[in-house]
């Protein structure tokens, strides 16, 4: 183990941070193993299991057939039998072929057993678009997972949180869905949001699941987001600063449990709320955040809250259409301006 001093300055991508957290837990805990499509010699299509096959071999890093129902169900069976599987659903868009194993089995067995059967597993899955992968490979589906009880759901926006949340997820006795955004992975071939690649300590540490982070402090408006939206928000905050406005940016980090206190405290201070979400507009994260604030009796908003979310349409392939539909910093700034004009 190297010293904190040395490691503090080391920058990692989210992909590497995830792999490192997994490797560290595997070294100290023989119950941890990894399953999924192409997680072995390839190291994961999105790089988050790179190096693990070399270090731990094919028994503990298992490539699977294209049988998500079976291997996610198998992870539940293994977790209930004392193991701690980390399993990958390559794209979250594929949830439709295996959601039963996820939401009816993984998420509910602990409850059905009255707490006697633990299901300590991590389901990693990639989210998001922006690189023209069209309507079956670009979705976020945060709301879909967060809506269904029994599983924790985390969404890191940077490598520090990714490592800490992954370690926490592996150590959690409950199932955790770990949703990582492709544009943040630091894989060159998907483009890279530079802000996601940050200093990451070498030693293992946890980031508490269920705690939002104040990514930037401000007074005039609260921008609430997750994953890649946090970076859009930070850019918007910078643009607003140039105009003399001070925006606070909340990085949710965890959708389940949802840290409503941090949200409400921020909005109580700023009086204004904009939610930025790359998932579909309706019946999802943005609605829940706005409602969580609006329903709080103590909360006095100075303006109607707004959302900058993905419209309720399948995601188009053509970059012109896709980029037009995606949230970005300009849209956040525009939403803020409109908010001022309305109130």
């Amino acid at each position, binding site marked *: 183990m190297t010293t904190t001093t040395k490691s503090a300055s080391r920058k990692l991508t989210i992909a590497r941070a995830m792999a490192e957290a997994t490797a560290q837990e595997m070294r100290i805990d023989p*119950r941890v*193993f990894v399953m999924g499509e192409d997680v072995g010699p390839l190291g994961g299509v999105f790089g988050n299991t790179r190096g693990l096959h070399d270090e731990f071999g094919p*028994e*503990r890093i*298992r490539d*699977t*057939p294209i*049988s*998500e*129902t*079976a*291997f*996610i*169900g*198998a*992870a*539940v*069976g*293994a*977790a*209930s*039998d*004392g*193991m701690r*599987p980390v399993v990958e659903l390559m794209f979250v868009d594929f949830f439709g*072929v295996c959601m*039963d*194993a996820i939401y*009816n*089995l993984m998420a509910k*067995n*602990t*409850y*059905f*057993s*009255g*707490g*006697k*059967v*633990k299901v300590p597993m991590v389901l990693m899955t990639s989210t998001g678009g922006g690189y023209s992968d069209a309507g079956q490979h670009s979705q976020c589906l945060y709301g879909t997972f967060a809506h269904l*009880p*029994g599983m*924790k759901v985390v969404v890191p926006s940077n490598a520090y949180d990714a490592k800490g949340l992954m370690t926490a997820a592996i150590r959690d*006795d*409950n199932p955790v869905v770990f949703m990582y955004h492709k544009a943040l992975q630091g894989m060159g071939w998907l483009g890279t949001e530079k802000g996601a690649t940050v200093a990451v300590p070498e030693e293992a540490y946890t980031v508490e699941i269920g705690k939002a982070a104040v990514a930037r402090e401000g007074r005039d408006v609260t921008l609430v987001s997750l994953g890649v939206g946090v970076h859009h928000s930070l850019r918007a905050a910078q643009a607003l600063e140039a105009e003399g406005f001070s925006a606070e940016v909340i990085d949710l980090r965890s959708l389940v449990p949802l840290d409503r206190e941090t949200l409400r405290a921020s909005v109580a201070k700023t009086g204004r709320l904009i939610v930025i979400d790359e998932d579909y507009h309706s019946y999802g994260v943005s609605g829940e955040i706005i409602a969580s604030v609006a329903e709080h009796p103590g909360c006095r908003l100075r303006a109607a809250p707004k959302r900058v979310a993905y419209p309720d349409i399948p995601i188009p392939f053509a970059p012109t259409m896709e980029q037009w539909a995606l949230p970005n910093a300009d849209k956040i700034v525009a939403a803020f301006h409109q908010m001022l004009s309305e109130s």
Partner: protein
Amino acid sequence: MQPTAEQRRWMYRNMVLSRYLEERIEALYMEGKTPVFNMAKGPIPGEMHLSNGQEPCAVGVCAHLEAGDIVTATHRPHHIAVAKGVDLDAMVAEIFGKATGLSGGRGGHMHLFDAAVNFSCSGIIGEGLGPAVGAALSRKLQGKPGVAVAFMGEGAANQGAFHEALNLAAVWQLPVVFVIEDNAWGISVAKQASTAVPRNDARASAYGMPGHHVADNDVEGVYAAAGEAIARAREGLGPSLIEIETVRLAGHFMGDGEDYRPKGEKEGLTDPIPRYRGTLLEAGVLDEAGDAALVAEAHARVEAAIRFAQDSDFLPPEAALTTVFV
């Protein structure tokens, strides 16, 4: 593979126990549900899938299992739970939804979990197959002994999970046995209307695993096939598939009028319990007195469990909020 006299009595006893349990549940289930049948009423509300007739599948398989072995069962789980040794008091209390139930009443009849004997079941067709494969993988990775058995109905053999789980178990050569209880019906849909092959054991070849077929709900036929499959699994030689011809003597669930069954079909079915009793009497493994004692003991055991359940309280309603996360 031939069962010993003791095993034969064990199988018979568990059949009797399971059946009497179902008979008592049936009666208690109907309390409060007459004259108008309303599922929400009575001491046992909700759906109720009885296993009457399918006992040979449970006992013939579980005769080879120990507490450490894993079983995943279906929406029709009682006979298997009994044979696997699930705590009867806690199981019946769970069926009544009581605090002393396996999960304090959170699961009910379709969600019986007893970690002490590695038993679980679920209400979604085919859902137990993946977990059985995973439990078997867990044993392999831990170097711990143990076989996993996934039970399912013949209707489940057309669900995608069946295919994926059998393939995965075979690719990884895991100690799993897949057991199909072919009662010829999936609710109102007959096997030949849902399944492209007459016998599902034929599907074993699609996974390069041995397939066994047990005709006529034969207790010792099940015992033999399961014995072979489970021994094979214990030896590390991989998974097997067994299909057992069995009978659904009750309806799909309580309240099922079964109008869809061809006239006379059900009347032609044989109850396996008197038949096996006859076999054992004839073989001299059991005598009338021994049988009477065994039956009386089974009844007493069931009645005690029912009293336990009835005497138990419900959890406070707010307990609904607990054990979501642990």
